[in-house]
């Protein structure tokens, strides 16, 4: 436009627009001429084309008809085809449905089958396979068919079923626990019996309870039936039959040693119990993933049972059976636990058992200590000790530490010997009570040997003498001797199996024997000797018996060495203290003999009846003195078995006692007055005594010793009866004096009594006889002199 506009503008603006126009017109005329020519040229062609077109139109119409016809034909044949096709489609659909139904059904069928099996298993109480089935059902079957509505309830029942299986197996376990509680006593019993058989020397009867409560034998079907713990991972889980499996119990390490006996006995402890409920329950719980619960439940229950087992039965201390049951129960419990430990993996572990055992041990020791504390029967005690021994051995066999029980046993030993001591107090007192305190008289050699069998007595002289022989001692001696031996045996019995060395045993026996001798026997003897109702005869026999027992101590030592098997070794072996004890007892008995005789003399003196104011003596000795002397004489004659030494001492002591009693009579403050006549009477009595002393009342004392007892009195009597005051005072202080044994104080006492009597008489009779007056004067002078002597003596000393 721009390009054109410029020349157009320049045209219009230039000087010749007309020119331009002219030119332009010219140009238009040219173009018109050209167009005309062209049209003329193409007109024919055009006509012809129209003609052609018309032709085409007819052809098309024809074609159109033809097509329509064909179309109709096609239409007709297509319709039937379409119908067929539709049918085919329908059939095809049906076929596919059938196929999918078959598929679904084949999917569901195993589920149902499994479910059925499960139900069946449940019915048969085969819980473990049931659980496996359930597992299968839940994890492999059900997920695949979860879309089915009808399986929904099944899915819902699965947890309930599982719970019911759990519950059912738990019930089984509970039954098992209950039965194990019942049978553990029996198990313990058998375990102890095995241990006992192993120990050989032990008497198997110590195990067996005699009580009527003995556990009933297990139903035979339980025996040997115990199935092995099923392997939860194995393929044969469902195969509940134990056929073809080895019995695991016989493989137990603990049992191997006992197998021979097992065969003999027919059953081992564990064989008695069907443990399968535990295994089953354990597996079931592990499978359901509640193993921890189960474990804790089991342990809790067992702990409870342990506590029950550890509860001692009432009145246990009364009978051995009580203890047996108690031990059986406890052993049974631990045997079962041990078995569980060995056959399950980790249901219980060592730590748990050890903890239980520690608790049990503590309790057992405490219970035993209390119960045995009440025990006063040595035999029972010994049996209990053996039982405890076996108990600890059995449990040690199962790997439990039992050292505390040994400590307890040592403790019990002390109590045992205490009980023995008490028992022996009775034994000794029984011997003392039963003894007739007369020398044993044997009529035949058998009787003689019966005594020597009890007591090692040897006397060659007696051996040769003809029957009947009189042994020096009474039955008391062999009885006491053999009882001491019995005691030693009894002590030894307790030390058996305590694992003490020979030295220890020997030491202990000696110690205990010493305690028995120095405490028990010595106490009994001392009590016996002090009994007031004891006759002189008994005392004498006791003192003789003591002599023999004292000699028998050597044999007792030999006896101990023999039974403890320790070579007698004077250096190391502690000596028996019996010898000195019997010596003491003898001297005590002898003391009592002297005392008893003196008491008799006292009784006689109670009968003394002096008339202290008599002017004249009766002319014959007092009756009581004659009685005493007769009594003493007959006593020393009658007691032929009184050892010479004792007889001598007794006689000496009797004489001294009489002398001192006579002296007391004179000095008695209640006797205020004494006449010379009374003194003469006393002198008569003294002469009797002196006669007695001089008459050899006991053998071996004829050297004048006995008379010495009366010397003081004799000198006193001489001074007074001879009125020999001049000599007395003159000789006073001289070692050779005639009246050396007469102290001036005694003279003063007696003289005062005489003076008092004189005073009374003179008052009464108002006598002024000359010789009386002289006598009085002399008396006063003597008294004065004597007082000076006493004072002088005081000065001297």
């Amino acid at each position, binding site marked *: 436009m721009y390009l054109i506009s410029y020349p157009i503008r320049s045209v219009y603006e230039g000087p010749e627009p007309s020119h331009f126009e002219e030119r332009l017109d010219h140009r238009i005329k040219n173009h018109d001429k050209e167009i005309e020519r062209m049209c003329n040229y193409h007109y024919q062609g055009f006509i012809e084309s129209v003609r052609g077109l018309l032709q085409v139109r007819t052809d098309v119409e024809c074609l159109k008809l033809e097509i329509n016809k064909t179309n109709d034909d096609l239409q007709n044949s297509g319709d039937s085809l379409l119908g067929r096709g539709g049918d085919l489609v329908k059939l095809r659909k049906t076929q596919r449905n059938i196929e999918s139904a078959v598929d679904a059904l084949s999917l569901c069928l195993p589920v149902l089958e499994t479910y059925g099996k499960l139900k069946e298993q449940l019915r048969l109480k085969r819980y473990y396979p049931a659980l496996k089935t359930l597992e299968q059902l839940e994890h492999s079957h059900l997920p695949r068919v979860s879309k089915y509505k009808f399986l929904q309830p099944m899915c819902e029942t699965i947890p309930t079923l599982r719970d019911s299986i759990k519950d059912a197996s738990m019930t089984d376990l509970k039954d098992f626990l209950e039965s194990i509680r019942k049978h553990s006593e029996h198990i313990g019993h058998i375990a102890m019996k095995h241990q006992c058989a192993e120990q050989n020397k032990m008497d198997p009867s110590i195990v067996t309870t005699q009580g009527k409560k003995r556990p009933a034998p297990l139903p035979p079907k339980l025996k040997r039936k115990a199935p092995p713990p099923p392997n939860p991972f194995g393929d044969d889980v469902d195969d509940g039959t134990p056929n073809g499996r080895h019995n695991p119990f016989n493989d137990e390490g603990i049992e191997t040693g006992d197998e021979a006996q097992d065969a003999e006995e027919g059953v081992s402890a564990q064989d008695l119990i069907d443990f399968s409920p535990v295994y089953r329950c354990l597996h079931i719980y592990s499978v359901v993933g509640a193993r921890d619960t189960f474990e804790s439940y089991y342990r809790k229950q067992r702990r409870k049972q342990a506590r029950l087992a550890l509860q001692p039965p009432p009145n246990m201390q009364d009978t051995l059976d009580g203890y047996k049951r108690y031990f059986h129960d406890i052993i049974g419990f631990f045997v079962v636990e041990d078995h569980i430990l060995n056959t399950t993996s980790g249901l219980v572990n060592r730590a748990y058992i050890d903890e239980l055992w520690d608790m049990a041990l503590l309790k057992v020791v405490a219970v035993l200590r209390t119960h045995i504390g009440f025990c006063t029967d040595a035999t029972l005690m010994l049996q209990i000790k053996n039982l405890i021994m076996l108990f600890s051995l059995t449990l040690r066999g199962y790997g439990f530490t039992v050292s505390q029980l040994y400590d307890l046993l040592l403790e019990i030993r002390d109590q045992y010997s205490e009980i023995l001591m008490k028992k022996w107090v009775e034994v000794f007192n029984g011997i003392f*009570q*039963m*003894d*007739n*305190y*007369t020398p044993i008289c044997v009529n035949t050699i058998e009787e003689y040997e019966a005594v020597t069998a009890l007591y090692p007595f040897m006397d060659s002289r007696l051996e040769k003498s003809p029957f009947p022989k009189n042994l020096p001692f009474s039955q008391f001696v062999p009885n006491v001797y053999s009882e001491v031996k019995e005691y030693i045996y009894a002590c030894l019995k307790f030390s058996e199996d305590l694992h003490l060395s020979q030295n220890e045993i020997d030491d202990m026996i000696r110690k205990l024997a010493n305690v028995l001798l120095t405490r028990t026997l010595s106490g009994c003897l001392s009590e016996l000797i002090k009994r007031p*109702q004891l*006759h*002189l*005869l*008994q005392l004498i026999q006791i003192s003789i018996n003591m002599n023999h027992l004292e000699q028998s101590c050597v044999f007792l030592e030999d006896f101990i060495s023999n039974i403890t098997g320790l070579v007698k070794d004077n250096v190391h072996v502690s000596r028996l203290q019996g010898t000195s004890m019997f010596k003491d007892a003898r001297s005590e008995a002898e003391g009592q003999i002297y005392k008893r005789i003196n008491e*008799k003399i006292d*009784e006689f003196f*109670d*009968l*003394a*009846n*002096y008339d*202290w104011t008599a002017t004249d003596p009766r002319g014959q000795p007092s*009756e009581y003195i004659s*009685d005493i002397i*007769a*009594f003493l004489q*007959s*006593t020393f*004659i*009658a*007691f032929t078995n009184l050892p010479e030494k004792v007889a001598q001492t007794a006689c000496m002591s009797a004489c001294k006692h009489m002398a001192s009693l006579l002296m007391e*009579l004179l000095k*008695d403050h*209640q*006797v205020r007055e004494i006449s010379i006549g009374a003194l003469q009477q006393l002198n008569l009595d003294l002469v009797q005594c002196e006669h007695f002393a001089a008459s050899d009342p006991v053998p071996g004392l004829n050297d004048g010793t006995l008379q010495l007892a009366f010397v003081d009195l004799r000198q006193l009597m001489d001074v007074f009866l001879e009125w020999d005051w001049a000599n007395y005072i003159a000789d006073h202080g001289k070692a050779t004096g005639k009246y050396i044994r007469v102290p001036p104080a005694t003279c003063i006492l007696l003289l005062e009594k005489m003076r008092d009597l004189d005073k009374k008489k003179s008052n009464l009779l108002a006598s002024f006889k000359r010789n009386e007056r002289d006598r009085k004067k002399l008396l006063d002078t003597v008294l004065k002199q004597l007082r000076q002597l006493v004072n002088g003596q005081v000065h001297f000393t």
Partner: protein
Amino acid sequence: MAKTYDYLFKLLLIGDSGVGKTCVLFRFSEDAFNSTFISTIGIDFKIRTIELEGKKIKLQIWDTAGQERFRTITTAYYRGAMGIMLVYDITNEKSFYNIRTWIRNIEEHASNDVEKMILGNKCDMNDRRQVSKEKGEALAVEYGVKFLETSAKASINVEEGFISLARDIKAKMDRKLEASNPSNRTAHQLKNEPSKKSRKWSCALL
């Protein structure tokens, strides 16, 4: 020394070994019993004071061994005895028949006027009795002495026996004193002041 008694009676127990003389004495002196048999050796005695009619009487009772071998020792004591208890065992016939021997012994060795009494001991053991009470009584009647069946074990008649014997001795003694020494009798009465007083009073009243 003050006299603690008015009379001293010496009694003697004799009889076969094992009839229970010591037990009878033990019962009387200690009121006790000991069942073990320990035969007496030689002689023993016990003293017990009793009171009779206001008098203190000391009984010195000699217990003799029954065994033959001590016979010489024991017979020496017959002489001084004022009363003799002859003891037999009702369960042992022999001991009963021997009473006659014992009485002959008494006649031989004891003083003529000794008081005697027969005791049939162990009367608690009726089931083993061999000597009837009647037989015992008949024997006692025959010798004109008192008789009692006793049991030291059951404490039957022991006390009664001794008291009875003591009473008889006392009665005899009183009679003798009276007969031989009338002055003694007055002296005796002097001591007995209360009775005298009462008599005086009654006199005054009359």
